[in-house]
């Protein structure tokens, strides 16, 4: 069984029952297998990011299920959801979202420490990850001392911190120029080749090109579901 995540009739309605009701996700069923590189594309407001947030257990569906590793996460308590996010999911955001007070290596260490590992273990692991993204020489730089591309690479290293089952990236190249974007895309591709499962929400055709599976969304529905 190599399914990582699946959704069943996932429904998300904002302002339910009011005049400004919005159906962000309309009974979405997708399945993601181990080793997949999934690109979720579609116009703005089509529900791509909402779907990614659901997969990442950041948001609660109105109805339907998200099943990660055979666990129905909609049944879990807040703390259990937090644990799933920490142990099974890595996030990469458009705004990088590094913690400005912490250095590159401390940012990468954060999720490891949150999972209760001790300082020496977490810093050696974090250094290893910074090597993967080729930033070990920037380990003690603060986010504001790094370029956008470097910040995103730190964020990718952070997403790998607890060796997650899946990496969820929301427009990871959205704030970067095209040359830097290429580096990030290449990095994601390399990680996929190393066996990481990756789901990317993107407008970037170059990412979509690499994807092993494309999900096109329109008006909260999955339009086609290739492969």
């Amino acid at each position, binding site marked *: 069984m190599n399914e990582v995540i699946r959704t069943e009739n996932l429904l998300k309605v904002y302002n339910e029952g009011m005049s400004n009701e919005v159906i962000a996700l309309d009974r979405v069923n997708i399945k993601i297998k181990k080793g997949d590189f999934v690109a979720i594309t579609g116009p703005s407001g089509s529900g791509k990011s909402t779907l990614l947030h659901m997969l*990442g257990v950041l948001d609660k569906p109105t109805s339907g299920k998200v099943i990660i590793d055979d666990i129905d996460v909609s049944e879990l308590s807040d*703390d259990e959801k937090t*644990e799933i996010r920490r142990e099974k999911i890595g996030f990469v955001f458009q705004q990088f979202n590094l*913690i400005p*007070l*912490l250095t590159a290596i401390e940012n990468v260490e954060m999720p490891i420490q*949150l999972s209760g590992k001790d300082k020496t273990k977490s810093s050696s692991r974090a250094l290893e990850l910074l090597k993967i993204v080729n930033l070990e020489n920037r380990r003690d730089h603060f986010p504001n001392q790094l370029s956008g591309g470097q910040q995103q690479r730190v964020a990718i290293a952070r997403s790998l911190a*607890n060796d997650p089952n899946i990496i969820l990236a929301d427009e990871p190249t959205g704030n970067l120029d095209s040359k830097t974007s290429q580096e990030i895309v290449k990095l994601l591709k390399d990680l996929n080749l190393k066996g990481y499962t990756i789901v990317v929400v993107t407008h970037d055709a170059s990412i979509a090109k690499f994807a092993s599976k494309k999900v096109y969304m329109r008006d909260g529905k999955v339009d086609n579901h290739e492969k």
Partner: protein
Amino acid sequence: MLDLALKNILRQKTRTILTIIGITIGIAAIITLGSISEGLTQTINSDLEFLSGFITVTSKDASTFFVGYLGSEITQDEANELLDVSGVKDVVPFNLATGPIIPFHGPEYIVYGFDPDKNEYFEGKDIDLESGRRLESSDEFVTVIGFNYAETRHITLSDFIELEDEEFEVVGILEKTESDTDDIIFLPLDTMNDVYDFDTYRAVYVIPDDVSKMDSIAETINEEFTDLSARTTADIAKQASGIINNVRFFTVGIAAISAIVGGLGVMNTMIMSVLERRQEIGILKALGATNKFVMRLILIESSLISLVGGIFGVMVGFVSTFLMKTVSQGTAIAIITPNLIIYSLIFAISLGVIGGLYPSKKAADLSPIEALRYE
């Protein structure tokens, strides 16, 4: 986590410092006022100790022990009659006069006249002499003085002090006691009465044959002498604890109010800080920080602020107590006890924890997705 908390509170330095000052002022007030009330308590207690075993007799409507039985007058006839009450071993009269009053402290000095033959019943009997001797039966224009009175005026043995246009030779100086005895002037009772033109005594001590009969003798005096009032140590102790409690309640109450205002400052600072850091808190939660972790982080920050404020407050309290003693030339009695420090610090930390509770709950309840959207 402590590391992250420290970095967070150092991020807005001015705001953190202002918040710390708020707590510092409150805790310094508690230490300063608390030390005064502690000093007062110890003085009163040491005064009470020497009274044990006597009945104090004053005129009926005289003021309390603590303002020197102001307005009380006992005649020699009354003293003689008291000696005839059954069970009374001795009647020991004394007189008091005070120097100019210093605001917030009391009289600059107290003149205390007693019969040197009955030295054993008087305040000062247990205080060792710094130098010289005690008053003796044949003494007339001589005096034994308290440590502060001598020190602040640079008086040494054989110097003369002037009271009511008469000169008295200093024959003895008492050791320092940290009580009001440090500002005392002892005179032989007969000389004092001549010089001050007193024909009555301020009060008398009635000494019982048997200490266990003290209450019944006091009762008899109160019944037989309608103009007099007899009080035992127990009565006075009761009166004293009432006064002490009032003083404590008042001083510490005022100080606590200012500290609580400081605590509100902590709460305000932490609420602002949580609002500014919504996004970061969202990131932490997305990365796998539990609600408990977020709550603890904010609580550690607020407790650190108030602990630092508390420590500074204790330091400022020491300085202000020291200044108070210096300005009053050692006459102000203020004692900082270890308990006062410990309770003040505990109070400071509790303010931080209580002030941090609401903001930390608010931070923990942030939904990660809402917090991430907020930019």
